[in-house]
Protein backbone atom coordinates (compact mmCIF):
# COMPACT_ATOMS: atom_id res chain seq x y z
CA UNK A 1 0.00 0.00 0.00
CA UNK A 2 1.31 3.43 -0.96
CA UNK A 3 0.21 6.37 1.15
CA UNK A 4 1.16 9.92 0.29
CA UNK A 5 0.27 12.68 2.75
CA UNK A 6 0.70 16.39 2.01
CA UNK A 7 3.46 15.56 -0.42
CA UNK A 8 5.16 18.46 -2.19
CA UNK A 9 8.15 18.45 -4.52
CA UNK A 10 9.57 21.86 -5.30
CA UNK A 11 12.38 22.26 -7.81
CA UNK A 12 15.31 24.57 -7.05
CA UNK A 13 13.90 27.08 -9.54
CA UNK A 14 10.77 27.37 -7.39
CA UNK A 15 8.39 25.32 -9.53
CA UNK A 16 5.96 23.36 -7.35
CA UNK A 17 5.78 20.22 -9.49
CA UNK A 18 3.84 18.32 -6.84
CA UNK A 19 1.70 20.44 -4.55
CA UNK A 20 0.47 19.16 -1.14
CA UNK A 21 -0.82 15.93 -2.58
CA UNK A 22 -2.71 13.24 -0.63
CA UNK A 23 -3.21 9.85 -2.21
CA UNK A 24 -3.43 6.24 -1.19
CA UNK A 25 -2.97 3.34 -3.58
CA UNK A 26 -4.09 -0.14 -2.55
CA UNK A 27 -2.12 -3.36 -2.67
CA UNK A 28 -2.24 -5.02 -6.06
CA UNK A 29 -3.85 -2.02 -7.69
CA UNK A 30 -3.04 -0.89 -11.24
CA UNK A 31 -3.01 2.86 -10.79
CA UNK A 32 -2.69 5.57 -13.45
CA UNK A 33 -1.37 9.10 -13.02
CA UNK A 34 -2.87 10.94 -15.96
CA UNK A 35 -2.40 14.50 -17.07
CA UNK A 36 -1.02 16.84 -19.71
CA UNK A 37 2.73 17.41 -19.89
CA UNK A 38 4.03 19.55 -17.07
CA UNK A 39 1.29 18.54 -14.63
CA UNK A 40 3.73 16.93 -12.21
CA UNK A 41 2.83 13.30 -12.81
CA UNK A 42 6.35 12.20 -13.69
CA UNK A 43 7.82 14.18 -10.81
CA UNK A 44 5.37 12.44 -8.47
CA UNK A 45 6.46 9.05 -9.80
CA UNK A 46 10.12 9.99 -9.41
CA UNK A 47 9.47 11.23 -5.90
CA UNK A 48 7.92 7.87 -5.00
CA UNK A 49 10.97 6.14 -6.50
CA UNK A 50 13.30 8.38 -4.51
CA UNK A 51 14.91 10.02 -7.52
CA UNK A 52 13.52 13.40 -6.46
CA UNK A 53 13.66 14.69 -2.90
CA UNK A 54 10.24 15.71 -1.58
CA UNK A 55 10.12 19.13 0.04
CA UNK A 56 7.41 18.31 2.57
CA UNK A 57 4.91 15.59 3.38
CA UNK A 58 5.41 11.87 3.83
CA UNK A 59 5.58 8.75 1.66
CA UNK A 60 4.57 5.46 3.31
CA UNK A 61 5.19 2.16 1.54
CA UNK A 62 3.65 -0.91 3.16
CA UNK A 63 3.41 0.94 6.47
CA UNK A 64 7.02 2.17 6.52
CA UNK A 65 7.91 5.82 6.23
CA UNK A 66 10.33 5.98 3.29
CA UNK A 67 10.26 9.75 2.77
CA UNK A 68 13.98 10.11 3.49
CA UNK A 69 15.05 6.64 2.36
CA UNK A 70 17.30 6.79 -0.70
CA UNK A 71 16.34 5.32 -4.07
CA UNK A 72 17.11 1.62 -4.33
CA UNK A 73 16.38 0.95 -0.65
CA UNK A 74 12.63 1.51 -0.85
CA UNK A 75 11.59 -1.75 -2.47
CA UNK A 76 10.41 0.13 -5.54
CA UNK A 77 11.25 -0.93 -9.09
CA UNK A 78 10.90 1.42 -12.03
CA UNK A 79 10.78 1.16 -15.79
CA UNK A 80 11.88 4.33 -17.55
CA UNK A 81 10.28 5.84 -20.60
CA UNK A 82 13.35 5.07 -22.75
CA UNK A 83 13.67 1.69 -20.91
CA UNK A 84 17.27 2.61 -19.91
CA UNK A 85 18.60 -0.80 -20.89
CA UNK A 86 22.39 -0.89 -20.52
CA UNK A 87 23.70 -1.10 -24.10
CA UNK A 88 26.92 -2.91 -23.17
CA UNK A 89 25.15 -5.77 -21.38
CA UNK A 90 23.29 -8.71 -22.85
CA UNK A 91 19.60 -9.21 -22.13
CA UNK A 92 20.49 -11.77 -19.45
CA UNK A 93 22.95 -9.38 -17.80
CA UNK A 94 20.42 -6.57 -17.92
CA UNK A 95 17.72 -8.67 -16.27
CA UNK A 96 20.12 -9.94 -13.61
CA UNK A 97 21.48 -6.48 -12.85
CA UNK A 98 19.33 -5.85 -9.75
CA UNK A 99 20.73 -9.08 -8.28
CA UNK A 100 24.28 -8.22 -9.30
CA UNK A 101 23.98 -4.94 -7.41
CA UNK A 102 23.08 -6.91 -4.29
CA UNK A 103 26.06 -9.18 -4.92
CA UNK A 104 23.91 -12.27 -5.42
CA UNK A 105 25.78 -15.36 -6.57
CA UNK A 106 26.37 -15.91 -10.28
CA UNK A 107 24.04 -18.89 -10.12
CA UNK A 108 21.25 -16.82 -8.54
CA UNK A 109 21.72 -14.14 -11.23
CA UNK A 110 21.56 -16.74 -13.95
CA UNK A 111 18.44 -18.36 -12.45
CA UNK A 112 16.67 -15.02 -12.13
CA UNK A 113 17.46 -14.13 -15.74
CA UNK A 114 16.24 -17.49 -17.01
CA UNK A 115 13.01 -17.68 -15.01
CA UNK A 116 12.00 -14.03 -15.45
CA UNK A 117 12.74 -14.05 -19.16
CA UNK A 118 10.65 -17.22 -19.58
CA UNK A 119 7.64 -15.47 -18.00
CA UNK A 120 7.92 -12.65 -20.51
CA UNK A 121 8.68 -14.72 -23.60
CA UNK A 122 12.30 -13.58 -23.84
CA UNK A 123 14.07 -16.94 -23.46
CA UNK A 124 15.38 -16.94 -27.01
CA UNK A 125 16.88 -13.46 -26.70
CA UNK A 126 19.04 -13.81 -23.57
CA UNK A 127 22.38 -13.45 -25.36
CA UNK A 128 21.36 -10.48 -27.49
CA UNK A 129 22.23 -6.86 -26.85
CA UNK A 130 19.50 -4.24 -26.46
CA UNK A 131 20.41 -2.69 -29.84
CA UNK A 132 19.46 -5.96 -31.53
CA UNK A 133 15.92 -5.97 -30.11
CA UNK A 134 12.69 -4.45 -31.39
CA UNK A 135 10.95 -1.76 -29.36
CA UNK A 136 8.44 -4.21 -27.92
CA UNK A 137 11.19 -6.65 -26.94
CA UNK A 138 13.18 -3.86 -25.30
CA UNK A 139 10.15 -2.95 -23.27
CA UNK A 140 9.70 -6.51 -22.10
CA UNK A 141 13.36 -6.72 -21.11
CA UNK A 142 12.95 -3.53 -19.10
CA UNK A 143 9.87 -5.03 -17.41
CA UNK A 144 11.72 -8.29 -16.75
CA UNK A 145 14.58 -6.39 -15.15
CA UNK A 146 12.20 -4.48 -12.90
CA UNK A 147 10.37 -7.70 -11.95
CA UNK A 148 13.68 -9.46 -11.21
CA UNK A 149 14.21 -6.91 -8.46
CA UNK A 150 11.26 -8.55 -6.58
CA UNK A 151 10.11 -5.17 -5.34
CA UNK A 152 6.73 -4.52 -3.70
CA UNK A 153 5.88 -1.66 -6.03
CA UNK A 154 6.41 -1.26 -9.75
CA UNK A 155 6.54 2.19 -11.30
CA UNK A 156 6.17 2.70 -15.05
CA UNK A 157 6.97 6.01 -16.71
CA UNK A 158 4.99 6.36 -19.95
CA UNK A 159 5.23 2.62 -20.58
CA UNK A 160 3.73 2.66 -24.08
CA UNK A 161 4.84 5.98 -25.50
CA UNK A 162 8.00 4.65 -27.19
CA UNK A 163 6.14 2.03 -29.22
CA UNK A 164 4.50 2.55 -32.57
CA UNK A 165 0.73 2.68 -32.72
CA UNK A 166 0.13 -0.89 -33.79
CA UNK A 167 2.45 -2.40 -31.18
CA UNK A 168 1.02 -0.17 -28.50
CA UNK A 169 -2.32 -1.98 -28.42
CA UNK A 170 -0.58 -5.34 -28.20
CA UNK A 171 1.73 -4.14 -25.45
CA UNK A 172 -1.24 -2.67 -23.58
CA UNK A 173 -3.01 -6.02 -23.43
CA UNK A 174 0.25 -7.70 -22.48
CA UNK A 175 0.88 -5.21 -19.70
CA UNK A 176 -2.60 -5.61 -18.26
CA UNK A 177 -2.32 -9.41 -18.21
CA UNK A 178 1.15 -9.27 -16.70
CA UNK A 179 0.02 -6.93 -13.93
CA UNK A 180 -2.97 -9.12 -13.13
CA UNK A 181 -0.85 -12.29 -13.08
CA UNK A 182 1.83 -10.76 -10.85
CA UNK A 183 -0.65 -8.93 -8.62
CA UNK A 184 2.05 -6.28 -8.16
CA UNK A 185 1.05 -2.81 -6.97
CA UNK A 186 1.74 -0.81 -10.12
CA UNK A 187 1.69 2.92 -10.69
CA UNK A 188 2.10 4.26 -14.19
CA UNK A 189 2.30 7.69 -15.69
CA UNK A 190 0.66 8.57 -18.97
CA UNK A 191 -0.55 11.57 -20.91
CA UNK A 192 -2.78 9.36 -23.04
CA UNK A 193 -6.27 9.15 -21.60
CA UNK A 194 -7.15 6.06 -23.68
CA UNK A 195 -4.19 4.22 -22.16
CA UNK A 196 -5.22 5.16 -18.63
CA UNK A 197 -8.86 4.17 -19.21
CA UNK A 198 -7.86 0.85 -20.73
CA UNK A 199 -5.26 -0.24 -18.19
CA UNK A 200 -5.96 1.25 -14.81
CA UNK A 201 -8.11 0.08 -11.91
CA UNK A 202 -8.14 3.68 -10.74
CA UNK A 203 -7.00 6.94 -12.29
CA UNK A 204 -5.79 10.17 -10.75
CA UNK A 205 -6.19 13.02 -13.22
CA UNK A 206 -3.57 15.65 -12.41
CA UNK A 207 -3.06 19.29 -13.28
CA UNK A 208 -0.59 21.78 -11.82
CA UNK A 209 0.74 19.35 -9.25
CA UNK A 210 -2.66 18.51 -7.78
CA UNK A 211 -5.18 15.76 -8.30
CA UNK A 212 -8.27 17.03 -10.09
CA UNK A 213 -10.19 13.78 -9.92
CA UNK A 214 -9.61 10.33 -8.48
CA UNK A 215 -11.77 7.43 -9.54
CA UNK A 216 -12.29 4.33 -11.61
CA UNK A 217 -12.05 4.72 -15.39
CA UNK A 218 -15.87 4.55 -15.58
CA UNK A 219 -16.35 7.33 -13.02
CA UNK A 220 -13.75 9.54 -14.65
CA UNK A 221 -15.16 8.99 -18.12
CA UNK A 222 -18.86 9.27 -17.26
CA UNK A 223 -18.79 11.95 -14.59
CA UNK A 224 -15.72 14.17 -14.94
CA UNK A 225 -15.44 16.26 -11.77
CA UNK A 226 -14.72 19.52 -13.56
CA UNK A 227 -14.44 20.97 -17.05
CA UNK A 228 -10.66 20.35 -17.15
CA UNK A 229 -11.12 16.61 -16.66
CA UNK A 230 -14.12 16.63 -19.00
CA UNK A 231 -11.99 18.22 -21.70
CA UNK A 232 -9.03 15.90 -21.11
CA UNK A 233 -10.80 12.52 -21.01
CA UNK A 234 -12.33 10.99 -24.11
CA UNK A 235 -10.97 10.36 -27.57
CA UNK A 236 -13.33 12.92 -29.09
CA UNK A 237 -13.46 16.15 -27.11
CA UNK A 238 -16.53 16.64 -24.92
CA UNK A 239 -18.96 19.37 -25.91
CA UNK A 240 -18.70 22.08 -23.28
CA UNK A 241 -21.47 24.61 -24.00
CA UNK A 242 -22.08 27.72 -21.95
CA UNK A 243 -25.71 28.38 -21.11
CA UNK A 244 -28.10 29.43 -18.38
CA UNK A 245 -30.65 27.67 -16.20
CA UNK A 246 -34.35 28.61 -16.53
CA UNK A 247 -37.42 26.85 -15.04
CA UNK A 248 -35.61 23.55 -14.63
CA UNK A 249 -34.29 23.67 -18.16
CA UNK A 250 -30.86 24.51 -19.51
CA UNK A 251 -30.82 26.99 -22.35
CA UNK A 252 -27.83 26.14 -24.47
CA UNK A 253 -26.95 26.43 -28.17
CA UNK A 254 -30.43 27.67 -28.98
CA UNK A 255 -32.09 24.67 -27.34
CA UNK A 256 -33.88 23.88 -24.06
CA UNK A 257 -32.72 20.68 -22.44
CA UNK A 258 -34.19 19.26 -19.21
CA UNK A 259 -31.74 20.04 -16.40
CA UNK A 260 -30.41 17.02 -14.52
CA UNK A 261 -30.26 18.95 -11.24
CA UNK A 262 -33.54 20.78 -10.70
CA UNK A 263 -32.27 22.59 -7.61
CA UNK A 264 -30.37 25.17 -9.66
CA UNK A 265 -31.42 28.79 -9.31
CA UNK A 266 -32.88 30.51 -12.32
CA UNK A 267 -30.46 32.52 -14.43
CA UNK A 268 -27.37 30.78 -13.06
CA UNK A 269 -24.58 30.50 -15.65
CA UNK A 270 -23.62 26.90 -16.33
CA UNK A 271 -21.50 24.84 -18.69
CA UNK A 272 -23.32 21.88 -20.18
CA UNK A 273 -21.10 18.91 -20.86
CA UNK A 274 -22.19 16.19 -23.31
CA UNK A 275 -19.92 13.63 -24.92
CA UNK A 276 -20.36 13.35 -28.69
CA UNK A 277 -20.94 9.62 -28.16
CA UNK A 278 -23.92 10.36 -25.89
CA UNK A 279 -25.71 12.66 -28.34
CA UNK A 280 -28.29 10.99 -30.54
CA UNK A 281 -30.41 12.13 -33.42
CA UNK A 282 -33.81 13.15 -32.02
CA UNK A 283 -36.93 15.08 -32.95
CA UNK A 284 -36.38 17.65 -30.25
CA UNK A 285 -33.12 19.09 -28.89
CA UNK A 286 -30.07 20.86 -30.26
CA UNK A 287 -30.64 21.79 -33.90
CA UNK A 288 -27.91 22.88 -36.28
CA UNK A 289 -26.46 22.66 -39.77
CA UNK A 290 -24.10 19.80 -40.54
CA UNK A 291 -20.79 21.48 -41.39
CA UNK A 292 -18.15 18.73 -41.15
CA UNK A 293 -18.30 14.92 -41.17
CA UNK A 294 -15.17 13.07 -40.01
CA UNK A 295 -14.94 9.34 -40.56
CA UNK A 296 -13.69 7.53 -37.44
CA UNK A 297 -14.23 4.01 -38.75
CA UNK A 298 -17.26 2.43 -37.12
CA UNK A 299 -18.68 5.86 -36.32
CA UNK A 300 -18.46 9.29 -37.86
CA UNK A 301 -17.99 12.55 -35.98
CA UNK A 302 -20.47 15.14 -37.16
CA UNK A 303 -19.98 18.81 -36.34
CA UNK A 304 -23.17 20.88 -36.12
CA UNK A 305 -23.21 24.63 -36.44
CA UNK A 306 -25.84 25.81 -33.97
CA UNK A 307 -27.33 29.29 -33.36
CA UNK A 308 -24.90 31.73 -31.77
CA UNK A 309 -21.93 30.22 -33.68
CA UNK A 310 -21.72 27.30 -31.26
CA UNK A 311 -20.18 24.09 -32.56
CA UNK A 312 -21.54 20.78 -31.29
CA UNK A 313 -20.02 17.42 -32.06
CA UNK A 314 -21.85 14.10 -32.10
CA UNK A 315 -21.05 10.65 -33.37
CA UNK A 316 -23.38 8.70 -35.64
CA UNK A 317 -23.11 5.08 -36.85
CA UNK A 318 -21.23 4.76 -40.13
CA UNK A 319 -24.36 4.04 -42.19
CA UNK A 320 -26.31 7.04 -40.86
CA UNK A 321 -24.05 9.85 -41.98
CA UNK A 322 -26.03 13.04 -42.69
CA UNK A 323 -25.27 15.09 -45.79
CA UNK A 324 -23.13 18.20 -45.27
CA UNK A 325 -25.38 21.28 -45.27
CA UNK A 326 -28.46 19.44 -44.06
CA UNK A 327 -30.20 20.28 -40.79
CA UNK A 328 -29.99 17.88 -37.90
CA UNK A 329 -31.42 17.69 -34.39
CA UNK A 330 -29.76 15.80 -31.55
CA UNK A 331 -30.49 15.24 -27.86
CA UNK A 332 -28.38 13.80 -25.04
CA UNK A 333 -29.07 10.22 -23.99
CA UNK A 334 -30.94 10.01 -20.68
CA UNK A 335 -28.72 10.85 -17.69
CA UNK A 336 -25.76 11.82 -19.87
CA UNK A 337 -26.06 15.58 -19.67
CA UNK A 338 -23.64 17.00 -17.08
CA UNK A 339 -23.81 20.50 -15.71
CA UNK A 340 -20.80 22.45 -14.48
CA UNK A 341 -20.97 25.62 -12.45
CA UNK A 342 -20.26 28.53 -14.79
CA UNK A 343 -17.86 30.15 -12.31
CA UNK A 344 -16.05 27.34 -10.49
CA UNK A 345 -16.21 24.86 -13.39
CA UNK A 346 -17.08 22.12 -10.87
CA UNK A 347 -19.66 19.43 -11.56
CA UNK A 348 -23.06 20.43 -10.13
Amino acid at each position, binding site marked *: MIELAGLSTVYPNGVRAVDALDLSINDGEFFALLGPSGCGKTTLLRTIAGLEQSSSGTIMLGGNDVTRVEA*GKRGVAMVFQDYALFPHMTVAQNIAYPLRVRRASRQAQQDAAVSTSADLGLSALLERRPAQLSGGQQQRVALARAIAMSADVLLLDEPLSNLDARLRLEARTFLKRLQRDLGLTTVFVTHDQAEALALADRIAVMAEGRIRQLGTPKEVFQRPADTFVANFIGSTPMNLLTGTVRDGFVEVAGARLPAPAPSLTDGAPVVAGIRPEYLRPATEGITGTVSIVENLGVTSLVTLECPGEVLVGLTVPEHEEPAVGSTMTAAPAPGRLLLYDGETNQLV
Partner: protein
Amino acid sequence: MTFKTMLRRSLYTVLIAALLAFFAVPMLWLASAPFDSDPGVGLRWPDWTLDNWRVTFSHPYALGSLVNSIVLCAVATIVTTALGTLAAYALSRVRIPGRDALLYVLLLLSSVVTGTAAMVPIFVLMLQLGLINSQYATGLVIAGGLLPAAIFILKDFIDTVPRSYEESARVFGASPWQVLRDVVLPVARPGIATILVWAFVQAWGNFLLPFLLLREVDAQPAAVLLRTLRDEGGSANLTVIPVFSLLYAVPVVALYLFVSKRYGFRFHGGIKA
Protein backbone atom coordinates in the same frame (compact mmCIF):
# COMPACT_ATOMS: atom_id res chain seq x y z
CA MET B 1 36.67 9.62 -72.96
CA THR B 2 37.67 12.94 -74.41
CA PHE B 3 41.19 14.29 -74.39
CA LYS B 4 40.22 16.89 -71.86
CA THR B 5 38.93 14.44 -69.25
CA MET B 6 41.96 12.22 -69.88
CA LEU B 7 44.29 15.13 -69.28
CA ARG B 8 42.41 16.09 -66.14
CA ARG B 9 42.56 12.56 -64.82
CA SER B 10 46.30 12.16 -65.49
CA LEU B 11 47.10 15.47 -63.82
CA TYR B 12 45.00 14.41 -60.85
CA THR B 13 46.84 11.07 -60.63
CA VAL B 14 50.24 12.73 -60.83
CA LEU B 15 49.32 15.17 -58.10
CA ILE B 16 48.09 12.40 -55.79
CA ALA B 17 51.23 10.36 -56.50
CA ALA B 18 53.45 13.31 -55.62
CA LEU B 19 51.54 13.89 -52.39
CA LEU B 20 51.74 10.21 -51.47
CA ALA B 21 55.47 10.13 -52.19
CA PHE B 22 55.97 13.16 -49.97
CA PHE B 23 54.49 11.27 -47.01
CA ALA B 24 55.70 7.81 -47.96
CA VAL B 25 59.42 8.57 -48.35
CA PRO B 26 60.12 9.13 -44.61
CA MET B 27 58.15 5.97 -43.80
CA LEU B 28 60.15 3.95 -46.32
CA TRP B 29 63.35 5.42 -44.94
CA LEU B 30 62.27 4.36 -41.43
CA ALA B 31 61.65 0.84 -42.71
CA SER B 32 64.84 0.47 -44.74
CA ALA B 33 67.58 2.59 -43.12
CA PRO B 34 67.82 0.51 -39.89
CA PHE B 35 68.83 -2.49 -42.00
CA ASP B 36 71.27 -0.70 -44.34
CA SER B 37 75.02 -1.10 -43.88
CA ASP B 38 75.58 2.58 -44.67
CA PRO B 39 72.39 4.50 -43.97
CA GLY B 40 72.20 8.00 -45.33
CA VAL B 41 69.55 10.69 -45.32
CA GLY B 42 68.42 9.58 -48.79
CA LEU B 43 66.28 6.64 -49.71
CA ARG B 44 67.82 3.57 -51.38
CA TRP B 45 67.46 -0.20 -51.51
CA PRO B 46 69.30 -1.37 -48.36
CA ASP B 47 72.46 -3.40 -48.30
CA TRP B 48 71.04 -5.76 -45.65
CA THR B 49 72.76 -5.98 -42.25
CA LEU B 50 71.84 -6.06 -38.56
CA ASP B 51 74.97 -4.23 -37.42
CA ASN B 52 73.06 -1.02 -36.75
CA TRP B 53 70.93 -2.91 -34.23
CA ARG B 54 73.98 -4.27 -32.43
CA VAL B 55 75.51 -0.79 -32.19
CA THR B 56 72.24 0.73 -30.96
CA PHE B 57 71.71 -1.92 -28.30
CA SER B 58 75.21 -1.34 -27.00
CA HIS B 59 74.69 2.44 -26.86
CA PRO B 60 74.90 3.43 -23.16
CA TYR B 61 71.62 5.39 -23.04
CA ALA B 62 69.45 4.32 -25.95
CA LEU B 63 67.47 1.46 -24.41
CA GLY B 64 67.40 3.13 -20.99
CA SER B 65 65.81 6.21 -22.52
CA LEU B 66 63.02 4.11 -24.02
CA VAL B 67 62.31 2.65 -20.57
CA ASN B 68 62.33 6.18 -19.14
CA SER B 69 59.85 7.21 -21.81
CA ILE B 70 57.54 4.36 -20.92
CA VAL B 71 57.60 5.19 -17.20
CA LEU B 72 57.04 8.88 -17.89
CA CYS B 73 54.18 8.22 -20.33
CA ALA B 74 52.54 5.60 -18.14
CA VAL B 75 52.35 8.09 -15.26
CA ALA B 76 51.07 10.90 -17.48
CA THR B 77 48.55 8.67 -19.28
CA ILE B 78 47.13 6.95 -16.21
CA VAL B 79 46.84 10.18 -14.23
CA THR B 80 45.26 12.05 -17.16
CA THR B 81 42.75 9.31 -17.99
CA ALA B 82 41.74 8.49 -14.41
CA LEU B 83 41.41 12.04 -13.12
CA GLY B 84 40.03 13.29 -16.42
CA THR B 85 37.24 10.71 -16.40
CA LEU B 86 36.23 11.39 -12.81
CA ALA B 87 36.34 15.16 -13.27
CA ALA B 88 34.40 14.98 -16.54
CA TYR B 89 31.73 12.80 -14.90
CA ALA B 90 31.35 15.23 -12.02
CA LEU B 91 31.25 18.26 -14.31
CA SER B 92 28.76 16.57 -16.59
CA ARG B 93 26.33 15.67 -13.81
CA VAL B 94 26.62 18.40 -11.20
CA ARG B 95 25.17 21.75 -12.07
CA ILE B 96 27.43 24.49 -10.85
CA PRO B 97 27.18 28.09 -11.96
CA GLY B 98 29.81 29.07 -14.52
CA ARG B 99 30.66 25.47 -15.35
CA ASP B 100 31.21 26.07 -19.04
CA ALA B 101 33.23 29.21 -18.39
CA LEU B 102 35.41 27.20 -16.01
CA LEU B 103 36.01 24.56 -18.67
CA TYR B 104 36.96 27.09 -21.32
CA VAL B 105 39.29 28.97 -18.99
CA LEU B 106 40.99 25.70 -18.02
CA LEU B 107 41.39 24.78 -21.65
CA LEU B 108 42.86 28.18 -22.43
CA LEU B 109 45.26 28.04 -19.48
CA SER B 110 46.40 24.52 -20.21
CA SER B 111 48.35 25.65 -23.23
CA VAL B 112 50.01 28.22 -20.98
CA VAL B 113 50.74 25.83 -18.10
CA THR B 114 52.86 23.44 -20.06
CA GLY B 115 53.73 26.00 -22.68
CA THR B 116 56.91 27.99 -22.82
CA ALA B 117 55.56 30.90 -20.75
CA ALA B 118 55.42 28.91 -17.52
CA MET B 119 58.66 27.05 -17.96
CA VAL B 120 60.73 29.10 -15.55
CA PRO B 121 58.23 28.98 -12.65
CA ILE B 122 57.68 25.26 -13.21
CA PHE B 123 61.40 24.62 -13.19
CA VAL B 124 61.89 26.65 -10.00
CA LEU B 125 58.94 24.92 -8.36
CA MET B 126 60.23 21.47 -9.19
CA LEU B 127 63.75 22.43 -8.14
CA GLN B 128 62.56 23.62 -4.73
CA LEU B 129 60.47 20.49 -4.30
CA GLY B 130 63.53 18.41 -5.15
CA LEU B 131 61.74 16.74 -8.04
CA ILE B 132 64.25 17.42 -10.81
CA ASN B 133 65.36 14.21 -12.54
CA SER B 134 62.22 12.34 -11.45
CA GLN B 135 60.23 10.74 -14.26
CA TYR B 136 57.16 10.47 -12.01
CA ALA B 137 57.20 14.18 -11.27
CA THR B 138 57.69 15.06 -14.94
CA GLY B 139 54.81 12.73 -15.81
CA LEU B 140 52.62 14.59 -13.33
CA VAL B 141 53.51 17.97 -14.84
CA ILE B 142 52.68 16.67 -18.32
CA ALA B 143 49.39 15.23 -16.99
CA GLY B 144 48.57 18.63 -15.52
CA GLY B 145 48.91 20.14 -18.97
CA LEU B 146 46.82 17.44 -20.65
CA LEU B 147 43.99 17.30 -18.10
CA PRO B 148 41.95 20.34 -19.20
CA ALA B 149 41.65 19.14 -22.78
CA ALA B 150 40.99 15.57 -21.60
CA ILE B 151 38.21 16.76 -19.26
CA PHE B 152 36.75 18.89 -22.01
CA ILE B 153 36.59 16.01 -24.50
CA LEU B 154 35.47 13.40 -21.97
CA LYS B 155 32.70 15.61 -20.62
CA ASP B 156 31.26 15.66 -24.10
CA PHE B 157 31.24 11.85 -24.16
CA ILE B 158 29.71 11.50 -20.71
CA ASP B 159 27.07 14.12 -21.51
CA THR B 160 25.68 11.68 -24.07
CA VAL B 161 25.19 8.88 -21.53
CA PRO B 162 21.48 9.22 -20.73
CA ARG B 163 20.78 10.02 -17.10
CA SER B 164 18.04 7.42 -17.11
CA TYR B 165 20.78 4.74 -17.23
CA GLU B 166 22.19 5.98 -13.97
CA GLU B 167 18.81 6.57 -12.39
CA SER B 168 17.73 3.10 -13.40
CA ALA B 169 20.81 1.61 -11.72
CA ARG B 170 20.15 3.74 -8.64
CA VAL B 171 16.57 2.49 -8.38
CA PHE B 172 17.94 -1.06 -8.44
CA GLY B 173 20.05 -0.14 -5.42
CA ALA B 174 23.42 0.60 -7.01
CA SER B 175 25.82 2.78 -5.03
CA PRO B 176 27.45 5.76 -6.78
CA TRP B 177 30.59 3.66 -7.23
CA GLN B 178 28.58 0.82 -8.78
CA VAL B 179 26.81 3.26 -11.09
CA LEU B 180 30.18 4.55 -12.29
CA ARG B 181 31.72 1.10 -12.71
CA ASP B 182 28.74 -0.74 -14.21
CA VAL B 183 27.10 1.94 -16.32
CA VAL B 184 29.00 5.17 -16.94
CA LEU B 185 32.49 3.81 -17.59
CA PRO B 186 31.44 1.01 -19.98
CA VAL B 187 29.17 3.32 -21.97
CA ALA B 188 31.81 6.06 -22.19
CA ARG B 189 34.55 3.53 -22.97
CA PRO B 190 35.29 4.55 -26.58
CA GLY B 191 35.85 8.10 -25.35
CA ILE B 192 38.10 6.97 -22.53
CA ALA B 193 40.11 4.78 -24.91
CA THR B 194 40.57 7.73 -27.25
CA ILE B 195 41.80 9.94 -24.41
CA LEU B 196 44.14 7.19 -23.23
CA VAL B 197 45.90 6.94 -26.59
CA TRP B 198 45.85 10.68 -27.10
CA ALA B 199 47.46 11.32 -23.70
CA PHE B 200 50.11 8.67 -24.36
CA VAL B 201 51.01 10.13 -27.72
CA GLN B 202 51.19 13.66 -26.31
CA ALA B 203 53.47 12.57 -23.48
CA TRP B 204 55.57 10.34 -25.73
CA GLY B 205 56.39 13.15 -28.11
CA ASN B 206 56.80 15.86 -25.46
CA PHE B 207 60.29 17.35 -25.66
CA LEU B 208 60.37 20.62 -23.75
CA LEU B 209 59.24 19.51 -20.29
CA PRO B 210 61.43 16.41 -19.99
CA PHE B 211 64.32 18.40 -21.48
CA LEU B 212 64.02 20.98 -18.70
CA LEU B 213 63.08 18.78 -15.77
CA LEU B 214 65.26 15.74 -16.43
CA ARG B 215 68.84 17.03 -16.37
CA GLU B 216 70.73 13.74 -16.04
CA VAL B 217 71.37 11.94 -19.32
CA ASP B 218 70.40 8.56 -17.85
CA ALA B 219 67.03 9.96 -16.73
CA GLN B 220 66.08 11.38 -20.12
CA PRO B 221 63.31 9.90 -22.25
CA ALA B 222 63.71 8.92 -25.86
CA ALA B 223 62.33 12.17 -27.25
CA VAL B 224 65.11 14.12 -25.52
CA LEU B 225 67.89 11.61 -26.11
CA LEU B 226 67.20 11.55 -29.86
CA ARG B 227 68.57 15.08 -30.06
CA THR B 228 71.91 14.08 -28.53
CA LEU B 229 72.61 11.14 -30.84
CA ARG B 230 75.71 12.47 -32.60
CA ASP B 231 79.00 10.97 -33.55
CA GLU B 232 82.41 12.32 -32.44
CA GLY B 233 82.47 14.83 -35.26
CA GLY B 234 79.16 16.36 -34.10
CA SER B 235 77.07 15.28 -37.09
CA ALA B 236 74.02 13.03 -36.79
CA ASN B 237 74.84 9.44 -35.82
CA LEU B 238 73.18 7.65 -38.71
CA THR B 239 74.06 4.23 -37.37
CA VAL B 240 71.99 4.62 -34.23
CA ILE B 241 69.26 7.11 -35.27
CA PRO B 242 67.38 4.89 -37.78
CA VAL B 243 67.09 1.93 -35.39
CA PHE B 244 66.32 4.20 -32.48
CA SER B 245 63.59 5.98 -34.47
CA LEU B 246 62.00 2.71 -35.40
CA LEU B 247 62.02 1.52 -31.77
CA TYR B 248 60.68 4.93 -30.73
CA ALA B 249 57.70 4.53 -33.08
CA VAL B 250 56.77 1.00 -32.01
CA PRO B 251 54.99 1.65 -28.66
CA VAL B 252 52.68 4.31 -30.11
CA VAL B 253 51.65 2.16 -33.06
CA ALA B 254 51.24 -0.90 -30.83
CA LEU B 255 49.09 0.99 -28.33
CA TYR B 256 46.96 2.41 -31.11
CA LEU B 257 46.37 -0.98 -32.68
CA PHE B 258 45.63 -2.63 -29.33
CA VAL B 259 43.17 0.00 -28.12
CA SER B 260 41.53 0.36 -31.50
CA LYS B 261 40.93 -3.38 -31.73
CA ARG B 262 39.82 -3.84 -28.15
CA TYR B 263 37.71 -0.76 -27.51
CA GLY B 264 37.11 0.95 -30.81
CA PHE B 265 37.82 4.61 -31.33
CA ARG B 266 35.42 7.41 -31.54
CA PHE B 267 36.17 11.06 -31.67
CA HIS B 268 32.66 12.20 -30.90
CA GLY B 269 30.02 11.35 -28.34
CA GLY B 270 26.73 9.65 -28.99
CA ILE B 271 25.51 6.12 -28.32
CA LYS B 272 22.91 3.92 -29.85
CA ALA B 273 20.86 1.99 -27.34
